[in-house]
């Protein structure tokens, strides 16, 4: 086992009302290797507590596929937090 904990850098996208709350549509985060999408989200709720109340009504994607919140992340992944969709 490595002595130094490894981290991975991921790209993070926000859309719709989340983008307005996050203050920007695109960000990045350094998280522990193997951390999940759920854990990534908490990085941002600690910065912007208002985001937390939207958790129950969000979907997430990893590399442009809808993904479970328990999905582990890898370096270079693109994660998006998606409010209920309203196209058409």
């Amino acid at each position: 086992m490595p002595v130094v904990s490894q981290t991975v850098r991921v790209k993070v996208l926000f859309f719709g009302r989340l983008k307005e709350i996050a203050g920007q549509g695109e960000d990045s985060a350094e998280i522990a290797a193997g951390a999940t999408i759920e854990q990534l989200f908490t990085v941002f709720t600690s910065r912007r507590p208002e985001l937390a109340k939207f958790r129950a009504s969000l979907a997430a994607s990893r590399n442009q596929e809808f993904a479970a919140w328990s999905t582990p992340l890898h370096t270079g992944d693109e994660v998006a937090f998606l409010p209920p969709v309203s196209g058409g």
Partner: protein
Amino acid sequence: MTVPLHDDQILFTREAIEAAALIGHVRGAEDGAVVTFDGCVRNHSHGRPTLYLDYEAYESMALVKMQEIAVEMHTKFPIHRVAMAHRLGRLQIGETSVFIAVSSPHRPAAFEACRFAIDTLKRTVPIWKKEYFEGGAVWADGELPPVPAEAPARKSAS
């Protein structure tokens, strides 16, 4: 050069959608029907007059999702071609936000496929609209896309 399995046309645009071009794209000599859906900006929402709408999308993912819908349409229904265009940016009342055209040799398939396409798009494609009215704006109520409940089983290290 490979020949595409289906010559469908799926796109986003920030200009007015050219419906005639989309219809022209799907219409072939073997077709007996072209069914279209023209989704347009309504002048009211929740009993309140709407001024205009702003649309945004996770474009790269949304395009893939729309292409997947087209593939599924061909799997489910005996249709010929699909054209699907969604507009982004600011739209005024009466303008077309989404246009779908489906051709088929016989009309039932085109009707059913077109209905399937717009219903699935509204549920699964990452697009959002903000409604502006006198004195404010709200993000439209949407649908939560179907998302896997569990992460896929860990792949063996390669």
